[in-house]
């Protein structure tokens, strides 16, 4: 304890450079402990036991490094530490932590390998371990891919246990009572005579003793917090308007900025005239940034007005100007040259398709915006030797690198203050708005600049969910599905997204056919090919990434084949499924929805099953075809995350995921015309509103062998389950989202 920062940072930089250069690495770098960022500037008498626990004479602070964009992970992470640390909600503070390798996300590797999440064989597990090593060396500190709980579950409980045992050791040395006779509860060590020694009173001593490194974790039967209903730590602040988000940050001497950058994304600004804008009240300047302009004012609205008043001529878009061109590019991508990966090739599909009458269908999944309710924003101050950034973001270390790249500062000179996020859905994985804020602040060094996107700029410069085109063929015989040939073409979201961050990712993109290739169905003749379309409009990870699109293609086609076979859609899925936890979620929604019971006239029920992020999820949607349109009556959803940390938050997130999936399947798409997104605000990209929200009945199962996250998996099945229900109610098969183009919703 008290050990000063070592050269670990330099060591890891060498390590990551070696990896980028393709040089093999030994286990030493991977297995060596990471530095503890809390040791930086640690006050006298304060103790830090690991990167997650900091105690001084005043308070206990738990570091919850996964960003909180609404998924409640700040509370959940704190609960995991507190479970073993024996401290209660209300007895500690939390912080998001600084960018540090110590907070690398060991669960990102799970999605980075070309194996089904349900494959726990030796090869798949070995590959995951290998990729985990790389992600550690590359310091992939981040929040996404529904990985927070998978990453944190053991790690944070261990952090709590080690801190607890070290505090007991300190108490033992102070009191003379052997550590084995000490207990802990409510943030204190308790002596056999009942005397309580609060952790804060032990901090100074704990900082001197050799920390305890070997601990065993408690049996789940002993848990006080995990698995029980919790009261989220942020709930009071979020119910009283007192919890600040990035957009609420105020730094002394701050000016306000608004930008307009070429809405033909990536295009140039040919010319601009800011003479009117510069004369407007409260406007101090209009400056040029990459691809556009920024207005600087003393108030957000004045900056909005001023930037709107700048006359600008925009250059062309580096992708097809009209939406049709995007679909044509996908349609032209089903050739061998574009084959990204053949995920499945079971039996003999060609023979099977040649032998009998073939069912064919084509599906489209549109571009969709993230549009979190808090528009993108950042406060940035650039000085000669530091850049400070206040915003909510999912990727702290990459943020440092991207921000520093704008000015020539070193990444270590970037101080990042992470904030609560007013939603993200993937939007806050991006760096372009931050780079813009830095470009502005760099032109007025020393002055903090708050950049706030207008909602229109947020839509224009969203990198939406990628489009996907699916072509499916299949055969049925004797009431069963006998052959399926699925081909999905899409641009690579990983290439587009990582490319903006300056990274090149080799190998196939598992997201092109995510939600489809990784299904647990055993079908006699089954081919699944992903085709990589050229880069079109820049795209980004949207909640559940590839699975809402490719999963819609695949599951809807399964439903069509069930219908063609005369098979019950739920029974046939159950017949084909070859994975225990997946079968159980399907059986659960069958039971919950009383599947097979009579619904009455003009009503229909649809089922969908999609596994994403290792979470098998089944949903049944019930609809009524009313005179005014389709009404969504009820949704039943069952999913398996292995272990539920907080049943209250779990239900809320599952319901929210269903609403998100349904709303976008109903009425949301981004289309391009003249190179620009045609949808500029929520009136044109609405999602679901309260009056449309059905009753949503949730059941969480815990049969899975690994702990998983729930932020994304409820989203993908919602669209196909809705489409399948509309077919059941009306006989109309919807093969393109959003469905609102073809049917009305009440």
């Amino acid at each position, binding site marked *: 304890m008290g050990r000063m920062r070592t050269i670990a940072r330099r060591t890891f930089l060498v390590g990551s450079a070696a990896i980028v250069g393709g040089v093999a690495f030994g286990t030493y770098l991977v297995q060596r402990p990471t530095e503890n960022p809390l040791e930086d500037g640690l006050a006298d008498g304060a103790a830090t036991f690991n990167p997650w626990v900091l105690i001084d004479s005043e308070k206990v602070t738990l570091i919850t490094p996964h960003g909180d964009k609404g998924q409640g992970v700040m509370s959940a992470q704190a609960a995991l530490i507190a479970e073993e640390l024996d401290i209660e909600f209300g007895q500690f503070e939390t912080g998001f932590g600084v960018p540090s390798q110590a907070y690398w996300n060991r669960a990102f590797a799970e999605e980075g390998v070309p194996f089904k999440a349900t494959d726990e064989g030796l090869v798949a597990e070995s590959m995951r371990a290998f990729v985990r090593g790389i992600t550690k060396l590359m310091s992939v500190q981040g929040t996404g891919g529904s990985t927070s709980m998978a990453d944190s579950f053991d790690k944070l409980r261990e952090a709590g246990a080690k801190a607890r045992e070290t505090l007991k050791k300190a108490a033992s040395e102070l009191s003379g009572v052997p550590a084995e006779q000490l207990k802990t509860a409510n943030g204190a060590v308790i002596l056999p005579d009942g005397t309580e020694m609060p952790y804060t009173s032990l901090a100074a001593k704990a900082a001197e003793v050799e920390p305890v490194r070997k601990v065993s974790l408690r049996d789940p039967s002993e848990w006080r917090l995990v698995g029980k209903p919790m009261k989220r730590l942020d709930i009071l602040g979020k119910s*009283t308007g007192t919890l600040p988000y990035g957009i609420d940050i105020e730094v002394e001497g701050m000016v306000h900025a608004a930008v307009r950058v070429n809405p033909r994304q990536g295009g140039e600004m040919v010319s601009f005239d800011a003479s009117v804008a510069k004369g407007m009240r409260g406007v101090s300047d209009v400056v040029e940034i990459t691809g556009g302009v920024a207005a600087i004012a003393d108030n957000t609205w004045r900056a909005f007005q001023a930037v709107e008043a700048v006359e600008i001529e925009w250059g062309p878009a580096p992708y097809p100007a009209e939406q049709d061109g995007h679909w044509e590019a996908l349609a032209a991508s089903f050739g061998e040259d574009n084959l990204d990966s053949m995920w499945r090739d079971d039996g003999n599909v060609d023979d099977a398709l040649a032998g009998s009458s073939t069912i064919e269908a084509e599906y489209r999944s549109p571009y969709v915006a993230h549009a979190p309710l808090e528009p993108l924003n950042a406060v940035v101050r650039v000085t000669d030797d530091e850049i400070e950034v206040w915003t909510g973001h999912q990727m702290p270390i990459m943020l440092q690198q991207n921000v520093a790249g704008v000015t020539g500062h070193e990444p270590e000179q970037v101080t990042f203050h992470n904030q609560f996020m007013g939603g993200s859905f993937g939007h806050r994985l991006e760096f372009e708005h931050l780079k813009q804020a830095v470009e502005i602040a760099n032109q007025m060094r020393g002055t903090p600049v708050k950049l706030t996107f207008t909602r229109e700029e947020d839509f224009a410069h969203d990198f939406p969910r990628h489009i996907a085109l699916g072509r499916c063929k299949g055969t049925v015989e004797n009431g069963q599905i006998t052959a399926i040939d699925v081909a999905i073409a899409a641009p690579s979201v990983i290439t587009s997204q990582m490319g903006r961050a300056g990274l090149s990712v080799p190998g196939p993109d598992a997201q092109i056919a995510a939600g489809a290739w990784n299904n647990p169905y055993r079908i006699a003749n089954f081919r699944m090919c992903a085709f990589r379309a050229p880069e079109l409009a820049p795209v980004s990870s949207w909640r559940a990434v590839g699975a809402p699109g490719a999963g819609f293609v695949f599951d809807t086609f399964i439903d069509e084949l069930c219908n063609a076979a005369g098979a019950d859609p739920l029974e046939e899925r159950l017949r084909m499924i070859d994975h225990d936890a997946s079968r159980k979620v399907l059986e659960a929604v069958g039971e919950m929805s009383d599947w097979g019971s009579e619904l009455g006239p003009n009503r229909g029920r649809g089922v969908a099953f999609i596994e994403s992020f290792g979470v098998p999820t089944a949903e049944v949607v019930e609809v009524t075809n009313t005179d005014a349109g389709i009404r969504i009556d009820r949704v039943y959803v069952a999913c398996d995350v292995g272990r539920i940390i907080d049943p209250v938050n779990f239900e809320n997130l599952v319901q*929210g995921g269903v609403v*998100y999936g349904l709303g976008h399947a109903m009425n949301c798409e981004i289309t391009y015309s003249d190179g620009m997104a045609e949808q500029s605000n929520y*009136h044109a990209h609405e*999602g679901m509103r309260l009056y449309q929200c059905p009753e949503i009945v949730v059941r969480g199962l815990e049969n899975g062998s690994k702990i998983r996250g729930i932020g994304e998996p409820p989203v993908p099945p919602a669209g196909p389950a809705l489409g399948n229900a509309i077919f059941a109610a009306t006989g109309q098969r919807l093969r393109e989202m959003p469905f609102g183009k073809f049917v009305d919703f009440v």
Partner: protein
Amino acid sequence: MRLTVNGKEHEVDVEDDMPLLWVLRDELGLTGTKYGCGIAQCGACTVHMDGFAVRSCQVPAASADGTEVVTIEGLGTPETLHAVQEAWVEHQVAQCGYCQSGQIMQAASLLSLNAEPTDDDIDVAMSGNLCRCGTYPRIRAAVKTAAQKLQEA
């Protein structure tokens, strides 16, 4: 112009057409009221003006001159919650929470006009407030709980 916000008088020097939202946030530092869309599509900026819920992004400052404005900070505080806020905490409505100031102000306005709203009343009153996280099932339940609390009070 003179604004009374949460019972306190303020003299502000702004353009007549500056939306009340930005007067509150940037001139008075009341950031509990949120900017989401600027065109009355999301409801995140909902405040009470003379007792009625309004979208503050659509109210020019000049129209607020001389009125009584209540924001989320004036409805209740963490120590003294309004019944609607109590219900929001009990049901743990919020996910990201960014829309919830507006949702709560809208619900408080509904319940001040209609003590026993039906499901349809709730649908009508609350559907102008967008929640991107999809907390609608909990919003519905919390509005009903808040109605009960106010009846019992």
